[in-house]
Each structure stands twice: as C-alpha cells, then as structure tokens.
C-alpha cells in the first residue's frame, strides 16, 4: 500500500534527523547535508508509490540518501575512481601501524572518533560510515560504491588505520598542551 500524503509527512518528521546525520557524515558538511536531505526527501516523495510499507521506511530513506550522497561525492571528486584503492588484491599492510582504537581512546571515545572521522578524506570516511552507521556488509558497501569487496576491505582497513593515526596525533597534541 503506497504512502499517503499524511503518512509521508509523518515519515518526514520521524526520519529527517537520521537522514540528515547520515548525509552529514557522508558529505562531511552541514550545508551540503541540508541540501542533500532536502533532495533525498524530494526523491522519496516522487517514488513513494513504489515503497513497500511492510519493510522499514527508514532503510528505504537511508538507501536513497546513501546513493545520492555517493553520487554527490563522485561528482565533486576530480578523480572519478574515488573509491578505488591503489592495489586492492595485492594489499599487504606494513607492520608498525598504530594498534586498534581501544588502546588509544579515552572516556570520550565517541566524540574523539567522530571528530577524527570528519578529518578523513571521502575515500576512507564514506566506507566507514556505511559500515558502522548503516551496518552494511562488505558486499552491500561494494554495491553502493560500485567497487568489489576486496576494495571495500582495503578501504575500511586503511580507513581505520588513518583514524587511529589521527586520534593518536590528537591525543599527543592534547597531552603536550
């Protein structure tokens, strides 16, 4: 049964924030997220007759948001192969990289992670957001980004490494002050 006008309005009220937050983390900009959220709901409104209301509406909206934001990032990027890591198949990470986050984080772990996440380039930030905010599998992330699962694994691995480096650097600069 398709969504009626009133129902859509209710869904807008209920899911606006969540869609906005996803857009914000994917696009790494408050203003861009506002525009993107608006566009997501416009697209959703146009397609509301195709929605299967037996499934969660939030997943549908977040799916539209994901695809829209990835398109925006691709258009924004000069290199169209935005989410292609350099050598996914032969990737063998060197030793000596910072260990997992648990060793680095303080009590304000969430805040530190979010702060460091925003400093990551799109290439690493977006897969992390899709994996940990949207809880997508490698295959689902690969389908969204238009790459293969190996590339997703590489991007997530490197993304987490970069995240650790940023947090460690932030921690060191905080201690030295």
């Amino acid at each position: 049964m398709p969504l009626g006008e009133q129902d859509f309005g209710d869904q807008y009220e209920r899911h606006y924030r969540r869609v906005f937050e996803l857009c914000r983390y994917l696009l790494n900009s408050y203003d861009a997220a506002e525009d993107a959220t608006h566009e997501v709901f416009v697209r959703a409104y146009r397609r509301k007759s195709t929605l299967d209301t037996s499934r969660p509406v939030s997943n549908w909206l977040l799916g539209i948001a994901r695809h829209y934001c990835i398109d925006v990032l691709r258009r924004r990027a000069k290199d169209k192969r935005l989410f292609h890591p350099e050598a996914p198949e032969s990737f063998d990470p060197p030793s000596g990289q910072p260990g997992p986050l648990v060793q680095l984080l303080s009590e304000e772990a969430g805040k530190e992670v979010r702060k460091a996440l925003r400093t990551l380039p799109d290439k690493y930030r977006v897969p992390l957001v899709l994996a940990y905010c949207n809880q997508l599998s490698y295959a689902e992330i690969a389908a969204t980004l238009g790459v293969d699962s190996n590339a997703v694994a590489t991007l997530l691995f490197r993304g987490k490494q970069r995240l650790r480096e940023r947090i460690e650097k932030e921690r060191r600069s905080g201690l030295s002050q």
Partner: protein
Amino acid sequence: MACPSEWTWTLYVDGESAEPECLELTRHLDENCQNCRELVAALRQENRLLAQAFAEIHSLNEESEIAALQGKPMDVARVAAYVAGLAMTLRLGFGFLAGLRVPAGLDWLNPFGLKAQLNLVVNGLVYVVNEGGVMMESIIKNGGLAALFVLGLFGLTASLRRSAKTTAMLGILVLLLGFPASSYALDIRSGEVVILPAKEMLDDTLLATGDSVRIDGTVTGDLIAFARQVEVRGNVEGNVFASAQQVEVSGEVGGSILGGAQTIRVSGQAIRDLYGFAQSIVVENTGGVAGNVTIFGAVGSLDGPIGRDVTMFGGRLSIASDIGQNVLFKGGRVSLGVPARVRGNLTAHVEAENDVQIEPGVTVIGQTSIELTDPARNRYATASFYLGQTIGIAAAFVTGLLLFWLFPGLTRVKLASARALVMASGIGFVTVIAVPVAALLLGVTLIGLPIALTVIGLWLVGLYLAKIVIAQFVGKSLFRGQGDRVLTIAPQLLTGLVLIFIAINLPYIGSLLHGLLIVIGLGALVLTLCRTGKWWYTSPDGSEL
C-alpha cells in the same frame, strides 16, 4: 600455522573471511595463541566502539563539534560585520571626497556636483549608444565563433554516441548558424554631427547619436537623440526624447519633450508636455508649451506661456508668463514676476514664507497656498516614518511568502564562507550594472525591444526580491541549530526583514547598507539559481511554510 596478519584478522572479525580460512583461523585461536586472541578481542572492541560512536549521534547535539572542525561557516554576525564595515568605509570615503574644496572653474570635475554628474551620465550614455552597437556585434560575432568551434569539437567527439546532450548541442549549433543579422526598426543616424537638412522630411522615427544633432527638417515620427548638443530648429511631429548637455528646441514639437540635460531651452512650441530633468530649464518668451510642464532640476525659468499645469521639484522657479492651470512647487524659492498670471492655484512647499515672492501686478486667480517644510525635521520622530516602514515590511513579508511558496529552492541561499560572500557581492554588482546596459543595447533592435523591456522589468523585480532573499538568509541563520526541526519560513523571514529594515534605516550608513544588501542579495539569488538549477522544487510534505 604462523600468526596471520592484522589484515587477515580484520576480515575474520568482520565476518568476511572465506569459510575454509575462517575455520583455520578459529583453530588458530583455539590453539591459545595469546597475541592473536588479544588482537582479535581488540578488533572486536574497536568495531563496537565505532558502531557506538555512530549510535550516539542521534542523542547528542553536535553542532559545536561540527563547527570546530569545519572551519566555521560564515554566520550572520560576520556577514553583518562585512557589510557594515564596507558601508562605513564607503561612507567615510565619500564624505572625505565631498569635503574636498574644488576651485569654482573646475567644479565640473567635482564628482559630487550636479554638473559633473550630469556630464558623466550624458557622456556615458553617448558612449554606450555610439559604441554599444559595435561592441554588441563584436561580442556576438566572436562569441558565436567560439561557441561554434567548441560545439563542433564536442559534436565530433560525441558523434558516435547519440544522447540528449548531443542532440541539444547540435540544435544549438543549428540555431547559431541561423543566427539572424541585426535589424533595426528606426532610422538610425550617427556621426560627429548629425544634421537633418531643412528641406528633408524623414517619414519615420529618428534615432540620432553623435557629438551634435541638429534637426532643421521634419521628422514625422519621434526624435530620440543622444549627443552633447541637440537642436530642434525644424519640426518633429512626434515626441522628442533627448539626452544631452544642451537641448534647444526652437522649432515645433507635435508631441511632448522629454529631456535629460544640463540645460533645456525651449524657444519654440511644444504641443503637448515638457518633462525636464536638468540643471536649468528655460521656456523663452518666444516659446511655449501647450500642455503640462514638469521640472526636476535646479533652476526653472518660464517666460513663455504654459497651457496647463506647472510642477517643479527643485531649487528655484521663476514665472513671468501665463500659466493655464495650477502651479505646484516644492523646493527652495519661487518667484512670480510681471506679467505672470496663474489661472489656477499656486501651491508652494518652501522652508520660509519669504521664499515665495509675488510681485505686485501678478495675478493668481485660484488660491495661493504656502506650506512651510521643516528642514530640521527628524524623520525618526514622525509616526508616518514608522507606518511606512511597517507597510514596507508587511509587503515584503507577503511577497516573500509567495516567492518561497512558488520557489522553495530559493530558501536555500547560502553564504557559507567569505569567498561565497565576496563572490555574491561581485556577481550582484555586475548584475546591477550590466543588465540595464544590456537591455539598453537590446532595445534598439526590433526583436530586442520587448526583450529589453522584459529584462528591465525582471531586473527591477530582482532588486526588490534581493532584500527578501537576504532577509530569509539572515532569519534562517539566526534560527539555525535551534533543535532538530528547522522552523517554518514565516518567522525566519519576518525576523530577517525586521533586522534588514532596521539596518537600512540607520543614520549615516543606512543608504549604503541598503545598496550593499541589494547587491549581495541579488548576487546570492543568481548564485542559488545557477547552483541548484532546481529552485522550483516543492517540499515533500508541501508544508515548508
């Protein structure tokens, strides 16, 4: 089995290892490899931390985190500081320049003097009209060639793939190839000296530009003249539109005279009205105007008969002739000398009673009314000022609601950075200057005239809407971060309008602020239209208002 790398364990923890490998890795952990167990536990904890970090965002207000990392987008305070600072600088600059003493003989150089300003306007108009056609043709020619080349290149590279874009480009190419040559509806004459000889009759409207334009013959249509000196010694059966340093009409004009000049002198006859925007307007005793005379200028001198009303807004008016109906004067001083005769009422708005001098022997048949204006009156102390502003805000509010209801995309005007603000200012400034000039150039062609009028109309509408757009930006910025749900447009717009109207009525810098806000608003409007291209979107629930 040797200890696997962190990469392998990461895939294992994420559940992405292939099944045979997964079994092997599990066996390795069961063999009590302490290092690997600790690593796997840490990786799992890391995943939980990352998931938790995102789960927390729905319950926190993180605006401060965003602002701290994203380089602080331009907020209302900064925009206000930028605009106010610029207005103050301009005001001080203008004040300094206006205060400079210029020798009397060089007064024409003083940019703040009426003489120099009129010179500038006239010279500018003459230049544009003289050279504008050539400029426009050159731009169109060169632009057309460049566009043809680019389109040809695109067409060549895209020729194997048929797409809507290729089709559109080819269509534009065809249009450019068939671009019509310019055509004129008027008789256009230009040169250093443009003369219509005495025995010549021009059965059309004449557009004349040059250094000097002299009509000794007859023009059956209108005369439109832009020159340093315009003389009508012959006969113009239609109207005379003249912009010059000096306009002299010693012949006969069947229609009205509309002149913008330093001096307008009428020693001939105008069958209809005279509208003068000039430093000095003189109707000689050998001349006359059968209709109304309306003067915006410094000095008006009417020695010839005027058939109907005389209205002047300016410095000094002297009347020594027969006026068919009423005289209305607002300005410095009005004097009526013998043999002046006013057949209607005489109304003068002056600062003092002795600014109205009526010599004995002058007849005013109707009523003589002298209304004193208080020069030192403070507009802020009058109720009418506040009433006017309230009406202005209400009108802008209603217009704004209608505008954003029709075009909701326009609510997303962004001035997110200093760069965007400067860009909006630049684009707005160019739009304010370039659009009327382009319309003027378009207006000389047959197909261009309606386009020119439409463009000017849209430009004027844009100037009005610019303030509304900037008011909505101000209001929206002030209400930003006030909770999860953005407030409806009405309170944002009203708040912004009130603040804008306060700003443009500030003493000393109010008028400059007004100009700057219009420029920035117009630039932001143009940028938004170009950036989104979808300003006609309606909101999903239709309830943005």
